């Protein structure tokens, strides 16, 4: 149980922050003192305060990624004391509050570390590889305006609920940063499972999984060796069961892609 919100005793901590001026430049840890903090402030609000201090001294503040500050946009991405998104379970960096720390703590703050996520500056990394995977097949092809009435295709509640569990992914990349192989399997499997659970997603099911997995490999993400660090670090606690599900889909799709009869007609009734 965390401390109560009414506890007003302030705390002071030392931050050890990764500073790196730009891509491919050497980085190093720098210590900053953060004093007299209100335990009700969020970790990022603490960084705001530290940054204002640094700025007032005429130095460049710590660059860190953030936006919604409520755990939904997937922008924030710090590794805190060795853990992507820090010590809490099922939260993003922006949902971490200073009441999780103790007076006098040393807090080590780094960017998400993974080969496919190069550092851009300080705590900010480039996660565009995720977008590339999505572009390869993370969709159901439906031309705007061509959809049938939404209730014409019932979806069992159980499937819809499970799809929602997978769809909760915020695309932050903590799964990759937590994995010793820097694998993106949790991210990819969540999307593959969400779309594969719907009747609407069936026509492209095989194509989707093959394309997304091959792009994932091409982007340099590693293999999954079933350590499940990904689910443990996931701010939405997305289950690694989806990885098993995707593996099954992938096998079936690979098999079918070899043996599936192919139509001779390619153009299809051009008139």
């Amino acid at each position, binding site marked *: 149980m965390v*401390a109560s919100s009414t506890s007003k005793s302030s705390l002071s901590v030392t931050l050890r922050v990764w500073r790196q001026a730009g891509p491919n430049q050497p980085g190093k840890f720098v210590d900053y003192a953060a004093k007299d903090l209100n335990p*009700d402030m969020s970790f990022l609000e603490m960084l705001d*305060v530290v940054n204002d201090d640094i700025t007032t001294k005429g130095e460049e503040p710590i660059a860190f990624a*953030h936006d919604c500050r409520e755990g939904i946009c997937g922008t924030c991405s710090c590794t805190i004391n060795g853990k992507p998104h820090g010590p809490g379970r099922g939260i993003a960096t922006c949902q971490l509050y200073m009441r999780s720390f103790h007076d006098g703590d040393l807090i080590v703050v780094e960017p998400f570390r993974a080969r496919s996520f190069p550092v851009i500056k300080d705590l900010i990394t480039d996660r565009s590889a995720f977008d590339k995977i999505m572009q390869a097949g993370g969709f*159901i092809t439906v031309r705007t305006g061509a959809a049938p009435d939404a209730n014409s295709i*019932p979806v*069992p509640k159980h499937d819809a609920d499970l799809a929602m569990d997978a*769809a909760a992914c915020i*695309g932050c990349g903590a799964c990759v940063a937590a994995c010793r192989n820097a694998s993106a399997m949790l991210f990819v499997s969540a999307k593959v499972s969400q779309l594969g659970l719907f009747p609407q997603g069936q026509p492209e099911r095989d194509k989707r999984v093959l394309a997304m997995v091959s792009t994932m490999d091409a982007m340099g993400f590693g293999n999954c060796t079933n350590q499940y660090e990904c689910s443990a670090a996931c701010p939405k606690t997305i289950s690694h069961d989806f990885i098993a599900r995707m593996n099954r889909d992938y096998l079936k799709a690979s098999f079918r892609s070899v043996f599936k009869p192919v139509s001779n007609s390619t153009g299809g009734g051009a008139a």
Partner: protein
Amino acid sequence: MAKLESKVPSGPLADKWRKHKADIKLVNPANKRKYDIIVVGAGLAGSSSAATLAELGYKVKSFVFHDSPRRAHSIAAQGGINAAKNYQNDGDSVYRLFYDTIKGGDYRSREANVHRLAEVSVNIIDQCAAQGVPFAREYGGLLANRSFGGAQVSRTFYARGQTGQQLLLGAYSALSRMVGAGAVELHTNSEMLDLVIVNGHAKGIIVRNLLTGAIERHAADAVILATGGYGNVYNLSTYARQSNATAIWRAYKRGACLANPCYTQIHPTCIPVSGDYQSKLTLMSESLRNDGRIWVPKKKEDRLKEPNAISEGDRDYYLERMYPAFGNLCPRDIASRAAKRVCDEGRGVGESGLGVYLDFSDAIRRLGENGVRERYGNLFDIYHEITAESAYQVPMRIYPAIHYTMGGLWVDYNLMSNVPGLFVLGEANFSDHGANRLGASALMQGLADGYFVIPYTIGDYLAGQKPGSRPSPDAPEFKAAEESILGVTKRLLSTKGREPVSHFHKRLGKLMWEHCGMARTASGLRQALKELPQLREEFWATVNVPGSGDTLNQSLEKAGRVADFIELGELLCLDALTREESCGGHFREEHQYPDGECKRDDENFGHVAAWEFQGEGKAPLLNKEPLNYETVKMSLRNYK
């Protein structure tokens, strides 16, 4: 003087859109690929339009300041999206949704636009379900609904408490598909800093690559802004921290009229402020008002008592008391002001006295804790993370906060601004919500604009532009715009004063909240209009923007945005001062009924106030578009 032609088609309301679609000009399929369209923003409005226009064959360039289109602020919407499907068989219809929206907007929106919105709402749900958006479903596999404020039917579709996320990811997947197909050129980490106008038409933008600092010129045949709302003028709000008004503000300075900036929405159910370090206010979805009951103690002295120790008889369920027909589900502006009123009376709860209870104990008795968890579990979790309190055991404490802006760039029925070639979609435009937006209607509007309106209406403009006639980015207009941006950047970087940017943003926010927040007065607004220019001067004289312009520089990004917020704040206050009436989210204390309700003045203010920039240091010009109600009669909003 700007020409404000609404271009509302003639004929009966229900036929206007159909007739318009049949009447407007089309671009033939082979010609579409000869047109480049710039879309700035990839929230619901931006992604849906970029994807759809690319499907149609146009060449689309999409720009976002985020590192991925999936991170747009739309992602944070929780509660749901309205549509007149009438799947619940509870008497809903296109007309009812239209009427509720007009009435909810306090008769300050354009009838024809709103009717069209209600018409296409049904297509949105079809489109999203086909994309694999995991909407909530009933056991039979059909879609589930909930109700939202300002409506007496259940027409809100939702995906747990993450509806915006799921709709955005649907639109993002459609956009990703077109990027993968090479039909959309995606520019992430790219912030639009200026609009380029050539021969009176919007023909391009200037952007800063946020990673390298490079200033780039991009030309096109038309420019679409879908850049979201300006609520962060108030600093503390439910908006994402990076949401900003730079795109619309710079377009305003290039001649696009900004309409009704004083129509800002305050959401009644947000987690109250806890300290000066605060960076954002977290919304607790309006859907909670379906099952939560709002109250404060009847007696001031009970204010700090344990809520569970206050007996039923000593509680004032003030919304149920004042608005028995709608109760806890009355519209946002009304619920917010009622909260302010009871807190002003000294009955507000929590240490600051700026809070009211949102209590689920009745719902837990009725549905069981698990039933409540199933509906609102993630919201209760968010509340717990932030406050370390369990709302299953003690009532939530909530207070109103800035949440949405109904005002925005003026657009006609085709969603084109008064600058030809410049289109504005989603929260960035002004058109559909009048003086107050109903819950679950912003998502509807963003997707309506992007999927179902602009794909038709942009053709009407482009058909008049010769293919290949777009100017080159080497044109002098581009050069001049680029130079002016470089000048601003240089100025910001060279001041090296003593105050960080956040200092000014906080001061601006306090000033705006105090003088132009939930309740406004002429004297308060005059005071704000005196202080804002001083704040602006101080900003330019003493701001400290460390670092350089040729790398990622978050201080520089913030500085540019806050500079624009300060100026926009001034226009907002001027609009609020000029509008001598109360309507929807704009409440002028001088204009109210004895029971505290808004007193509109339809005769003198039944118009859209569209402000036109006249040059630095000059007063902006007020243009008025009269609101002609052909079908509905403007009447007193009644939720009692």
